[in-house]
């Protein structure tokens, strides 16, 4: 049995068994998750191998003629600078996906330890930190991101930071709340009774219990971060020129909307929606499978 | 047949099933019994044996996705299960009422006591003038022994016992024939429970009620019920008058239940318990559902399910032990 566990065939068989049993058990939610994964995988492939998806360069201003409607040579048409819209989408995926994932991870890396410590330690430290986090949480995240982005100036790193700041309280509040309730559980009490050190309790007992929820929230959070990134670059705060980006393309398209150039806004927006939807579906599916009560609140 | 005129409610071969992802839960299977006018019937069984589902189904209120897979529920000769929605609404509260397990959560927290009453009256008799409705409510409170000023209060301002009395008042306000009480005392403390029993008995004679008392509390059932039906795993095991059940229980399950009640007259060192636990209602074994726990099990018990057979004028049991004796 031990040998089988380490063979690739065994792994695949186990994975298959697990997926088929999960599929039976969760029905609709399972397919929701699969749909999410498919969308994400597709766009992820696009970021890694963009040249497989298009033969045009996103910044090539001689890709075709100016503002032509979708045709066989340019499936999504061309923009005002004669660039291929599809090529810009393919290469723009890198920007939005990279920023969103990096920002969500960054806020998780900052928010989770703070939440764990705050919930575990309690006292004045907890109260002050909670007050700050709650205030930020109740404040419109986009305005905060706008303020940060405006202060930091354009740039990929800066926009990532601006988006990340918004979501730190999300993780903090989630993890702190869970830590507080897990802290009171009997098995943690028991661990303390047999003399486990605080660090051990935090790392061995509390953190693993929190992590399942964090995975779900991370996925939903990336969906949100995608829209925040797009919003920032749509209003012109995010990125320096030259980096293909869906939000920026949308604001470009907006200028030519009155002349009925529909393809410049339709496709980038659709992609933002699809990508966000992919992560939302993945998150919701995971939530239903890991903890059905999680999202009911 | 004079017997028929006396019968107010008749349940015939009722089965209720809940389809779930891993199979079908048969909560109630082939249950038949009758309730006479003015009679109090106790429905006794362990939790999860289907007695609450049975009680709710009499109002056609069994929780979805449960559905009736067979049988009839006749109220004065009309099948409740095939009534129109409109007729059902009229019947609920006016002909048959229900008192629930938890008085603390059975009143809407956003409605005053008065609003609960007036709403109930309004939906059964929209033409009744407001003053008359208020007068009726006032009279009901008097009967229940609750001050009138409580009418303007919200449920959270009342004690548990008071809320239970309000629940009874709501059940009785339209003067129904039958009241179904589902574990009415489980969440009350002992003193309040005694008061509840007295109140129910006095109301019973005032309103000429028939009662179905659903409970696992044998003491309560002995005090109130004329007849007792013992339920196990969705089936009726034994039906008899209260005296008969306690004096000569036929079914080993009933015998076990009664043995479990601590007796202060006998010097008892330990609590008697019944070994094992009720069967999974999804994968029922063949034969008598009690067979795996039965101390007097015989081979046929595991092969065929015994039917409920009358053994004395007012005593029936579903057990192979007695059928064998009769040949």
């Amino acid at each position, binding site marked *: 049995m031990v040998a089988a566990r380490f063979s690739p065939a065994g792994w695949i068989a186990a994975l298959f068994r697990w997926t088929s049993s999960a599929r039976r058990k969760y029905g*609709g939610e399972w397919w929701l998750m699969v749909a999410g994964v498919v969308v994400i995988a597709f766009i992820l492939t696009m970021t890694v191998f963009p040249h497989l998806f298009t033969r045009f360069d996103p910044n090539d201003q001689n890709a075709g003629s100016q503002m032509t409607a979708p045709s066989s040579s340019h499936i999504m048409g061309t923009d005002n600078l004669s660039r291929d819209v599809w090529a810009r989408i393919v290469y723009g995926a890198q920007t939005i996906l990279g920023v969103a994932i990096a920002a969500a991870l960054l806020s998780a890396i900052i928010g989770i330890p703070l939440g764990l410590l705050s919930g575990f330690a309690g006292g004045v430290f907890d109260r002050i930190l909670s007050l700050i986090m709650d*205030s*930020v*949480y*109740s*404040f*419109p995240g*986009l*305005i905060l991101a*706008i*303020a*940060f982005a*405006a*202060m*930091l100036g354009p740039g990929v790193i800066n926009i990532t930071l601006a988006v990340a700041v918004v979501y730190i309280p999300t993780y903090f509040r989630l993890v702190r709340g869970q830590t507080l309730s897990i802290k009171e559980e009997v098995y943690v009490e028991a661990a303390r009774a047999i003399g486990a050190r605080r660090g051990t309790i935090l790392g061995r007992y509390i953190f693993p219990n929190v992590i399942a929820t964090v995975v779900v929230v991370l996925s939903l959070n990336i*969906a949100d971060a995608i829209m925040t990134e*797009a*919003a920032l670059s*749509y*209003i*012109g705060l995010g990125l320096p020129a030259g980096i293909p980006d869906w939000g920026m393309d*949308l604001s470009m398209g*907006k200028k030519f*909307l*009155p002349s*009925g150039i529909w393809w410049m806004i*339709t496709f980038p*927006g659709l992609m*933002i*929606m699809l990508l*966000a*939807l992919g992560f*939302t579906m993945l998150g*919701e599916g995971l939530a239903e499978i890991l903890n059905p009560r999680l*999202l*009911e609140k | 047949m004079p017997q028929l005129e006396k019968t107010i409610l008749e349940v015939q071969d009722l089965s209720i099933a809940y389809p779930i992802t891993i199979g079908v839960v048969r909560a109630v299977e082939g249950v038949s019994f009758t309730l006479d006018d003015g009679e109090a019937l106790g429905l006794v069984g362990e939790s999860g044996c289907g007695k609450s589902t049975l009680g*709710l189904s009499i109002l056609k*209120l069994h*929780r979805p996705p449960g559905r009736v897979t067979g049988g009839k529920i006749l109220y004065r000769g009309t099948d409740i299960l095939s009534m129109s*929605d409109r007729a059902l*609404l*009229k*019947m*609920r*509260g*006016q002909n048959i*009422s*229900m008192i*629930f397990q*938890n008085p603390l*959560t059975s009143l*809407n*927290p956003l*409605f005053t006591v008065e609003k609960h009453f007036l*709403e*109930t009256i309004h*939906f*059964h008799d929209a033409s009744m003038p407001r003053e008359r409705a208020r007068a009726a409510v006032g009279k009901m409170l008097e009967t229940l022994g609750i001050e009138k000023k409580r009418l303007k209060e919200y449920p*959270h301002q009342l004690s548990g016992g008071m809320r239970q009395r309000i629940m009874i008042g709501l059940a009785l306000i*339209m003067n129904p024939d039958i009241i179904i009480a589902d574990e009415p005392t489980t969440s009350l403390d002992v003193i309040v429970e005694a008061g509840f029993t007295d109140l129910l008995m006095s109301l019973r004679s005032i309103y000429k009620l028939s009662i179905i008392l659903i409970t696992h509390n044998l003491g309560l059932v002995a005090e109130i019920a004329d007849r007792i039906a013992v339920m196990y795993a969705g089936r009726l095991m034994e039906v008899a008058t209260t005296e008969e059940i306690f004096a000569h229980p036929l079914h080993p399950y009933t015998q076990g239940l009664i043995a479990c009640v601590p007796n202060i007259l006998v010097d008892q060192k330990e609590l008697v318990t019944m070994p094992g636990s009720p069967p999974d209602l999804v994968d029922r074994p063949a034969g008598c559902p009690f067979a795996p726990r039965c101390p007097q099990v015989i081979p046929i018990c595991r092969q065929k399910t015994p039917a409920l057979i009358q053994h004395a004028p007012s005593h029936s049991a579903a057990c192979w032990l007695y059928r064998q004796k009769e040949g």
Partner: protein
Amino acid sequence: MVFVMLTLVFVVLRVMPGDPVSAMLGGHAPEKVIQQKKADLGLNKPIGMQYLDYMGKLAHLDLGESMIFKQKVSQPILEKLPATLELTFFGLLLSLGIGIPLGVFAARRRRSGRDYGARLYANVVYCIPVFWMGLLLQLVFGIFLGWFPIAGRTSPRVEVSAFSKTGFYIVDTLRIGNFAAFGDVMWHLVLPSVTLGIVLSGIFVRLTRANMLDVLKSDYILAARARGVPERRVVYNHGLRNALIPIVTMLGLQFALLLAGAILTESTFSWPGMGRLLLERIYLRDYPVIQGVIVVYTLFVSVISLVVDLLYAAIDPRVKY
């Protein structure tokens, strides 16, 4: 809470890297000019002093003066605030109007086709970027069909100065009985508030559905049914009223999303509100105004959470103030 938020605003705008004066004057301004300007604006004082100054002035509702124009910060804010309020009011109204009935509709039959349909709607709509929704509506109803205007609060032919007094055009036009102008104002409101309303309705579908599912499981719902109360009344009067309590509590938090959505909608529809003001002044690097706008948003959020608390007390008899 307000205090913490205001402090945070100060920290973000003053302590963060980035020097407003040199940004405003351009990189090549002589050092002397920069220092002079800083002194004028009080930016040469120690950071602690600056903070006390800022808080002290705020206590008197003084937001300072613009760095670019000769005007008080409060002037453009007071001009733009009514536009934002009108937009958010109708947006919220619409999203509640769509979200709550749809949520109830879904919760009445869990795991049925309508439930999955409503949940799909909620998820898809939630993932539509507000500005894209706005652009699409502009394209279809403004450009292709030509039914609605795609920018501004009024048509050029409408003389705003003839009725503008409070800045709330709806109120102003009705007050003087100018129904033609009122119609024009409402006509301009349609697309922006529909944009905001639809995108936010997804959240309310989810909130309503989840809370209704919880409430419909309660004992008092079953008890009401057992008393012969009709289904419609059970769902709406017993069920929805109880479900509204957690929904109202969440409303305060959703308001943040509403304001964020409003900024993007304003930007898309050239709606002369606070969001546009914020973005314009960010391009101009007019820091006192940027700060002022954010302060006003903060106050806005606090007022809303107060209103939510009052509303909560009004619905739930268990809460007393």
